[in-house]
């Protein structure tokens, strides 16, 4: 039996074939197509021609730098805030959830039972100028009549934070839940008070969760356009909105493609640096 298992067998390769085919047809081929489009010139009516026109990249970078960096900044803020909000929550569920752990997890996931757009529209209602919250506060004269949240970066950020919170909370929960609670006893036994035990044991051991949660939050948040679309105004336009407009309204495919790859490149570099800082060994070990 042992000898047989060492012999080359086509089965594992055949098993990966459907997935590999799927990714080739629907991911790798379109990626290369778009990459080629990002170096094309022309217009929608007469067609685009590949000319190696790299200026697409410099053009979009100079024209949309505000939106690009705003998106990265929003992504960072959203990641940090969701991290701060979900860490104590995930910790509490993992340690104190007891028999109800699954119930609490379900509660975190519950909003996902309604579609993304509906949830964001609900926030639009909540943050409206005369909504339950603002209208009531204004009625009590606690806020001036002209006060508004909608169309500000506060609105976009709170929508993003709300929508991406579970992507941060769940990986954190998994990492914290996996930790043996007796490690904290060991840390206090070895002269660490609660704060030191957290910093030296719990935090390092939860880093894989922090890393996974940050990626799952940061990447989609940077590219998101729904929240800026529904909750934002002219000053909160994100790069996702620009890309969408290039493709759907302006029909300028090369610039849309160039922007997409620019964003992708920035995210890849950012993630790479982030992984270096957190230490890759922690993530694989």
């Amino acid at each position: 039996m042992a000898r047989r298992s060492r012999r080359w067998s086509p089965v594992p390769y055949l098993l990966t074939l459907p997935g590999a085919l799927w990714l080739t047809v629907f991911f790798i081929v379109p990626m290369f197509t778009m990459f080629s489009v990002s170096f094309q010139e022309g217009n929608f009516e007469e067609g685009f021609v590949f000319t190696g026109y790299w200026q697409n990249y410099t053009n979009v970078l100079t024209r949309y730098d505000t939106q690009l960096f705003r998106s990265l900044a929003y992504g960072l803020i959203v990641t940090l805030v969701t991290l701060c909000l979900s860490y104590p929550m995930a910790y509490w569920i993992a340690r104190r959830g007891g028999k109800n752990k699954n119930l609490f997890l379900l509660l975190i996931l519950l909003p996902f039972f309604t579609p993304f757009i509906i949830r964001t529209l609900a926030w639009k209602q909540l943050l409206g100028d005369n909504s339950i919250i603002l209208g009531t506060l204004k009625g009590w004269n606690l806020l001036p009549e002209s006060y508004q949240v909608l169309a500000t970066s506060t609105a976009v950020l709170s929508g993003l934070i709300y929508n991406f919170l579970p992507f941060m909370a769940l990986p954190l929960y998994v990492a914290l839940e996996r930790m043996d609670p007796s490690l904290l006893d060991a840390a206090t036994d070895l002269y660490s008070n609660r704060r030191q035990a957290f910093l030296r044991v719990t935090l390092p051991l939860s880093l894989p969760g922090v890393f996974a949660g940050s990626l799952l939050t940061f990447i989609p948040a940077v590219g998101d356009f729904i929240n800026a679309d529904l909750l934002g105004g002219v000053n909160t336009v994100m790069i996702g909105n620009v890309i969408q407009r290039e493709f759907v309204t302006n029909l300028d495919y090369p610039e849309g493609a160039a922007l997409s790859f620019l964003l992708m490149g920035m995210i890849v570099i950012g993630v790479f640096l982030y992984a270096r800082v957190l230490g890759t060994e922690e993530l694989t070990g």
Partner: protein
Amino acid sequence: MAEIRLEKLTKEFKETLAVDHIDLVVEEGQFFSLLGPSGCGKTTTLRMIGGFEDPSSGAIYLGGDDVTDLPAYKRNVNTVFQSYALFPHLDVYNNVAYGLKRKKVDQADIKKRVEDMLVLVDLEGYGPRRINQMSGGQQQRVALARALVNRPAVLLLDEPLGALDLKLRNQMQLELKRIQREVGITFIYVTHDQEEAMRMSDRIAVMNAGRFEQVGAAQDVYKLPATAFVAGFLGASNLLDGEVEGADGSSAKVALAAGSTIALPAARLPNERGSVRIGVRPEKIFIEAAGSSGGGTENRGDNAIEAMVDISIYTGVSTSYECSTTDGSKVVVYVQNMGASADALAPGSKVRLSWHPEHTFAVEKNSSTEGGDNEMSDRGGTT
């Protein structure tokens, strides 16, 4: 001076009394075991000494100081946890150095102490290894080193060998004993394994239902169990019902329900009159066919009863006989297989069982339930 003193220490969990007003003194440098079945409160007691569990009432003194309200990280004790609880994100060196770093010992000193400690536990050169590259036995040693390197006044060990296989376990028992002698630190060792406790400890406290049944030197506890529970939990023993007939100087007579009257030192009787249970260890009993009148010159003891062999089990080193007396009590006897003379007595044979008065002990008739029903069957013949 007493290293540890517990005064009326109590722990209540909701409805249950896990530890029930226990008093205990452990002297400096002793290897002390808390022995008992699972759920008897031994681990809770240990966790209270370590500072991981707050007592409901009572006090804990360490080297004369009241530490009852001191948090774990301020106590001069260290613990070897049942699951080892090694830090998986640190290598062996940094696991062992963890406590010294928190105590702000200077770097050069830490390095020296950690390396000396790794030598002591036979892990020289393993410093850079990751924890998940170590075997169970090695992890056990790292856990021991991590605790001992801090030179605590007392080392607490919570069933540290429970996860190891039998061979490694026996080896680590000797190793632990050696290390304890070498460092001279007081060890408090929690275990449910009576053999392990007897093999390693200077003194043993046998615990049951949150209370101490008996505290004493390993040999004394084995030879003279104070209660039926201890008699049953620590090794195998035979218990026979009887009535005290009276004392004659230092010797007392007890009429057994099984039909004969036996003698034992009067001081061992729990009560001067009335019902008692008489105990004798299976390896202390001589067995011979009824009416064979002994034959040899050796003194086989003055206490004797008639019985019948139910089962005989040959185990190589010894043969164990299960006999029943005339009143239906069961008596187990171990006989060393020394030579041709020890021909097995067939089931159904009438036999005479005899033993010396000094090997006889007595416990209260209605004392607590007998410990460890399993002891007779699986721990037999391991003397």
